[in-house]
């Protein structure tokens, strides 16, 4: 049996002490930068353009109020009073001093957080549906499996030096909010006809330089064999993945070069040698982990709420928020609230210390102390009573957190880009800010409807541009920023990689180009119900190319 230890705080504290010593030795010259760099990266410390950046893991995007308050405290005490939520459900602090890093890690350890496995060629932070345990369409709560995978993968001795980094995502809903098909392993928990938990296992998805959609390698993996099967995939990858070329080292290239069938044969062979042994997950152990994720004590409530209905009728701003930022909850009388970190014109994903504290307070009082981080760089209050929504809305609004744009054209994902990132070719955030301002009018936004714009500052694709309905990739053309547009990408269960629409646009042209694409969509759609992505799938790239280039 695999041993599920509780979060091992002794280990994390040991790591903090070890890092404190390493930092001291770097500062006094005992360690050279070459010796120190891998050590700091193992603790989530990157050197970016202007400062050190600390990336803190938020396992499957779940935070308690206490943890969010700690992040707020760190932002205020050690940084410039804000943090940046990333597309991998993590948080990054952009302005940290190396000498203070050990203190920060010690602070994080107080709330069971750390920065381990946020860097390097290991299994990275496992991500999951941010509506887990709340969504009305959910079949199975993916968090227990994400936690089991986290424990298994944490410092797994065999998998700390993989050919390349490895990302796993889990969902338990047919509508995929976790983008599982663009992960190295994507898992969908579901039930078979007898009601037993089974996993569809996808392998070899990824973005970056060579974007690929994962292929389904198993459709019926029994729950008890989850770890053994994942271990088998990792073993085959660890052995056969390319180490000669970092651009060909991800498992997606192995799947592509070897073919799914051959890979599946190798995995099955490996699986046969380990299944039913130490990695087997007995029901009792799964139940133990599930107990950590037991539903909060929901009240028995009617499906509708008079308080909520009146607020919708009488307060147009609340109604707009309700229309856009609420999602159906599995329990009557509750709702899921998306807190947009995309106020018009602001850097996507940033939250100030005061905002984090306000959200922590609201969550403590109105959402069973839970907050989620989404890969779309927003936060979520997963369990709010309909009756409480007007109050929660007012509290959010008073701290600039009630922008009613979830899923709309201004809910833009953008990576840090050339404003922060040492790998960038072009800026992302200012482009997002300008697009957001161009489409600021909220009735125009809601008329346009669902539209996902995603921006990356280089081909590493941290801004998920390949799977944006409209993707924007910053490139460096002879020292100038240029932006390449892709159309038709999608990160959900109908996963698609966007198609390059044509030659790139300068920084001056890019916002007009986006507006032109939106205008073309509005002309082409049959009705307001036909979303951008639907139109794109119906008509293809051509009409967009024509309006962008031919008439230009």
């Amino acid at each position: 049996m695999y041993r599920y230890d509780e979060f091992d705080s002794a280990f994390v504290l040991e790591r903090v002490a070890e890092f404190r010593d390493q930092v001291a030795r770097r500062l006094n010259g005992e360690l050279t930068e070459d010796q120190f760099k891998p050590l700091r990266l193992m603790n989530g410390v990157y050197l970016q353009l202007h400062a050190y950046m600390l990336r803190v893991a938020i396992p499957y995007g779940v935070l308690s109020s206490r943890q969010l308050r700690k992040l707020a405290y760190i932002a205020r005490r050690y940084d410039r009073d804000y943090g940046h939520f990333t597309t991998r459900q993590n948080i990054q602090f952009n302005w940290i001093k190396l000498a203070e890093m050990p203190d920060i890690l010690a602070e994080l350890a107080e709330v069971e957080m750390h920065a381990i496995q946020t860097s390097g060629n290991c299994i990275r932070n496992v991500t999951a549906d941010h509506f887990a345990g709340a969504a009305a369409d959910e079949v199975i709560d993916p968090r227990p499996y994400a936690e089991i995978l986290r424990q298994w993968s944490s410092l797994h001795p065999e998998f700390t030096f993989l050919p390349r980094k490895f990302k796993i995502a889990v969902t338990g809903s047919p509508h995929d909010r976790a983008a599982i098909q663009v992960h190295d392993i994507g898992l969908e928990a579901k039930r078979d006809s007898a009601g037993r938990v089974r996993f569809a296992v996808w392998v070899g998805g990824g973005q970056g330089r060579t974007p690929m959609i994962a292929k389904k390698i198993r459709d019926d993996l029994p729950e008890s064999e989850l770890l053994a099967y994942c271990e088998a995939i990792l073993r085959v990858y660890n052995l056969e993945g390319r180490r000669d070329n970092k651009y060909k080292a991800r498992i997606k290239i192995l799947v592509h070069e070897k073919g799914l069938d051959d890979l599946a044969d190798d995995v099955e062979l490996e699986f046969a040698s380990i299944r039913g042994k130490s990695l087997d997950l007995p029901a009792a152990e799964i139940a133990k982990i599930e107990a950590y994720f037991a539903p909060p004590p929901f009240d028995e409530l009617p499906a509708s709420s008079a308080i909520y209905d009146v607020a919708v009728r009488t307060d147009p701003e609340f109604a707009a928020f309700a229309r856009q930022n609420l999602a159906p909850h599995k329990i009557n009388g509750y709702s899921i609230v998306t807190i947009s970190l995309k106020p018009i014109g602001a850097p996507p994903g940033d939250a100030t210390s005061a905002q984090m504290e306000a959200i922590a307070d609201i969550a403590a009082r109105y959402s069973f102390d839970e907050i989620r981080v989404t890969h779309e760089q927003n936060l979520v209050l997963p369990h709010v009573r309909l009756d409480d929504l007007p109050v929660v809305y007012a509290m959010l609004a008073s701290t600039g957190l009630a922008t009613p744009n979830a899923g709309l054209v201004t809910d833009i994902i953008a990576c840090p880009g050339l404003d922060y990132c040492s790998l960038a070719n072009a800026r992302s955030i200012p482009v997002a800010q300008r697009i957001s301002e161009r489409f600021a009018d909220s009735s125009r936004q809601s008329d346009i409807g669902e539209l996902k714009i995603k921006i990356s500052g280089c081909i590493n694709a941290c801004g998920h541009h390949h799977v944006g309905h409209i993707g924007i990739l910053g490139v460096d053309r002879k020292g100038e920023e240029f932006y390449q547009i892709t159309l038709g990408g999608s990160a959900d269960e109908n996963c698609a990689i966007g198609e390059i629409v044509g030659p790139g646009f300068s920084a001056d042209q890019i916002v007009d180009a986006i507006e032109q694409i939106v205008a073309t969509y509005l002309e082409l759609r049959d009705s307001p119900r036909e979303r951008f992505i639907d139109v794109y799938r119906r008509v293809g790239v051509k009409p967009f190319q024509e309006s962008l280039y031919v008439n230009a």
Partner: protein
Amino acid sequence: MAKSRLGGLQAVTANDLRSGAVVFMRRDGSWTDDVRLADAAQDPVEVERLIELARSGRNATLVVDPVLIEVAAEATGVAPIRLREKIRAAGPTVTFDS
């Protein structure tokens, strides 16, 4: 030693080891956070001397990754040329007040 491939006027930049802040080197080997006060050179021998100095012993505990960048001599002092270096010198171009 990495020979400079840049050609024109050049200065040395790095990140401060302790804070990570962007710094530029002066002829005497000291560091400043003001790019205008950096010392630049064009003569290959002089450029080589600058980068050697930046990489020499005592700097190992002061800065990280010293490199040469192209700069221009302006009335106000040295100015970076590439956008990346302009952003490094001046800070993010992101606007925070919305």
